[in-house]
């Protein structure tokens, strides 16, 4: 199968500080890659480079086999989602979800049908006319996902999207995302600090350490890697058994 995302030898520095060093990465279609790494390791920069919001110093990026290294973000069909839901505060839930379709000048009848379906899928029927400040953190994040998914992006780039949520809401959102990703055949790169979340969400895992990426072919090899931190965590919980 042809990879949806192929990154070759991407490097990036800010001033004298090297953030990413010769990154190679591939992502198969309809799979989720969890990306872990400590703060400042370069995860966000890599995601922003893929989205076209930052420019790499060197290297090439292919999406669907097409080189997009110098393409503007609006033409990449890759959506970058932040930790914050970033709903447009001047629009209600319905209009937030419809935003991308309106940009594409989707006919009104089709737009209403698609948005209504998405609102229903997200379980937000009773909140469709609410403004963002009337929603809880989890509800906002749902709308944010719906707004992204409705335009059927080639690639979803998620930068710790559940980082600001409490543990219960976080688990619910993980389930919702897995369902959405499966139903809509989404390919995604999922950045997280949380090792458990990385395993739950990802079909494969990558780890960035000081700007260098190690991509594990499967979850087992990640578990067996001595630097992954997984074994330490398992040992920690074992002591309470």
């Amino acid at each position, binding site marked *: 199968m042809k990879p949806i995302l192929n990154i070759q030898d991407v490097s990036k520095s800010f001033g004298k500080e090297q953030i990413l060093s010769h990154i190679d990465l591939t992502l198969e279609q309809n799979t989720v890659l969890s990306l872990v790494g400590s703060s400042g390791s370069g995860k966000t920069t890599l995601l922003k480079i893929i989205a076209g*919001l930052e420019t790499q110093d060197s290297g090439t990026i292919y999406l669907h086999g097409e080189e997009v290294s110098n393409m503007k973000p*609006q033409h990449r*069909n890759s959506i970058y989602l932040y930790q914050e839901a970033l709903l447009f505060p001047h629009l209600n839930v319905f209009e937030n979800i419809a*935003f991308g379709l*309106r940009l594409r000048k989707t006919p009104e009848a089709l737009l209403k049908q698609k948005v209504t379906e998405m609102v229903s899928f997200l379980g937000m029927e009773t909140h469709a006319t609410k403004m963002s*400040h009337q929603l809880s953190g989890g509800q906002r994040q749902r709308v944010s996902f719906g707004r992204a998914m409705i335009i059927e992006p080639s690639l979803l780039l998620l930068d710790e999207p559940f980082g600001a949520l409490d543990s219960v809401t976080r688990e619910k959102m993980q389930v919702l995302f897995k369902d959405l990703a499966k139903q809509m055949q989404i390919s995604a790169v999922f950045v997280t600090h949380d090792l458990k979340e990385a395993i739950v969400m990802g079909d494969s895992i990558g780890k960035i350490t000081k700007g260098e990426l190690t991509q594990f072919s499967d979850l087992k090899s990640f578990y067996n890697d001595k630097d992954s931190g997984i074994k330490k965590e398992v040992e920690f919980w074992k002591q309470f058994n």
Partner: protein
Amino acid sequence: MKRILQYIFMISIGFPLVFLLVLSLGRQWPYPSVFPKQMTLANWEFMQESSSKLFQTFFTSLGISLTVAFLVTALCFFVSKRIAYSKNRNTYLVLAYIPYLLSPVILAVIFQYYFNIAQLTGTALGVIIAQFLIAFPFGVIIYLNFWNENLKATEELSYTLGGSTFQTFKKVLFPLSKNAILLCFFQVFLISWFEYGLTNLIGIGKVRTLTVSVFNFVNEANIFYAALACCLLVVPPMILVYINKKFIFFVEKNEA
């Protein structure tokens, strides 16, 4: 007690306005009379006389202030964004305060030489450019706090959702910045509207704005005409305060 304080506040705002209106209608007001001996519309009829040019002055002032406010509001929106996200944000911010450390009159003296060479002194265009140079840094300062990381992320999100630069401006940045734009427009309009020293120096008496006229009437000891000009002078700011209250304050209250 609270009600008394409210009344005192209202009187302190309303009294000067009523006083100006009475003064503009009055004639012959010798000490110690409480009110003018004669109340007449003659002073207001003076506005219509072709020699007085007070109407013309009013519209010249309005034209200059609206032009300056529009130019500064539009340009500062984009310039302030660049500055806010620049690495040298603080340096630019310090530079923006310099015109206010020097005072507009001193700047006008500095400008005057160059404006003479460019033959801009004594022209409305010269006054507009001079006022623009004073108000521009102020516009940047007003906008600077509006731009923040959250807004930047929202803008970037719009791009990744497929929005072009224009679509993002129209559908995201403009609606979110409406209050900041109105605030900047009002503030710059007021700076320009009440500007005297710089306008007088660059306009060299040929460009008569309402503020300059008020000072001229005061210098001529013509308090009735000065009051009349003052009445005209406070009309646009009062309209702006009303719009400000209706459209900004009311919206913010509803959002809260």
